[in-house]
């Protein structure tokens, strides 16, 4: 079985150097992503599939694939908790 996440509809983002600023236009909230989170977010936005994303993160962050996968899972979970991502099929 597969499940997944997608970006909340009202989220807009901009890159400022190595920092990303995310805003939710509808909820009037904002978040700043730095470091690994900024890297992962940009990779997500390229549209990579999950396994390729894990491999890319593993290479960029010099982690083995298991660690990269756990790191990515943790970030996705955090973003979901913060309201940046929603689980697929949860409405927009």
């Amino acid at each position, binding site marked *: *079985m*597969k*499940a*997944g*996440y*997608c*970006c909340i*509809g009202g*989220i*807009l*983002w*901009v*890159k*400022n*150097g190595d*920092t990303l*600023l995310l*805003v939710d*236009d509808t909820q*009037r*909230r*904002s978040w700043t992503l730095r470091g690994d989170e900024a890297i992962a977010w940009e990779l*997500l*936005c390229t*549209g990579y*599939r*999950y396994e390729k*994303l894990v491999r890319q993160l593993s290479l960029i962050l010099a982690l083995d694939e298991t660690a990269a*996968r756990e790191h990515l*899972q943790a970030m*996705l979970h955090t973003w979901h908790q913060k309201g940046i991502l929603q*689980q*697929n099929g949860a409405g927009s």
Partner: protein
Amino acid sequence: MTNLAISTVCNLNCPYCFAGDHMGEVGGEQPYISRETFAQQLDYLDRSGIDEARLLGGEPTLHPEFPALVAMARQRNKRIVVFSNGLMRPAALDCLMALPETHCHVMLNINAPALNPAPVLTRQKATLKRLGQRAMVGFNIYQPNIGMDFLLDVIDETACQRRVRLGMAQPCLSGENDSIRPHQYRFIAEKIVAFARKAAARQITLEFDCGFVRCMFTDDELAFLEANGSTIGWHCNPILDIDAHNQVIHCYPLTGVGAINLDATSTATTLRAHFSEQVAMYRQAGIFPECINCPLKQRGECTGGCLAVTMRRFRHSDFAIQVAEQEAQ
């Protein structure tokens, strides 16, 4: 400050016009403000303690009842400020000439020669000559390599105010108008300073519209501009433009951002607070990636340029990622 857009009709078609998004929405069958709506807007100015009626359009002087609207504002003791292209009807010009100089200020926008056929400039100069000290020349820089020197001759010829108001064409959120890009700002700053030197030699000073940023000028350039009487700031705030149907917007370039209706209790303070809160998230960024860490911006000395430019930097990414179900838990 609040501008009252009394007409959506214009007799020019400038490629940089940042009112385009708004004009498209509200034109149609009622392109001019009614006297009743205008009176409501004057009430708003009174409530807000604003002693100016700043009339813009479109071309505001094309309103068939322009003299009557000016008279209504004068009855409330408002100073009349008009943003015009100078191609105005005789009745409109006569009514402005009938006002005391101290109560009438016309910002007459002149385009670069490439956009301005000679007959248009001739008419504009005739208007300026008649208005004299009631009028000041405005100019929008909409391309980087644009000549402005001819404006100095226009001022000498017409004996209008010895001051030029410079604007940089900013994008509508739709991006459909011609506008200056941030990477062109530095080049434009050099052009402005060169123009300012020529202007200073003829005792003509400059003032700057919103959207300029501090970092486009060197310290020496800024010192020169200030020493020669230029009025310069690095601001971008809710101007508050109210249209002919009592819709209030942050400013023309931000037409797409939550217009609200003017009601009987609205004041400039409450409206400005509303729009400031609405765009506060975006204000964290600026027109350049570096703005977010800029000490001048953090201290509030520079707002980071035009918010429409900043907002156009943002994007949405419509991604979806599939993971194993146990990983998604």
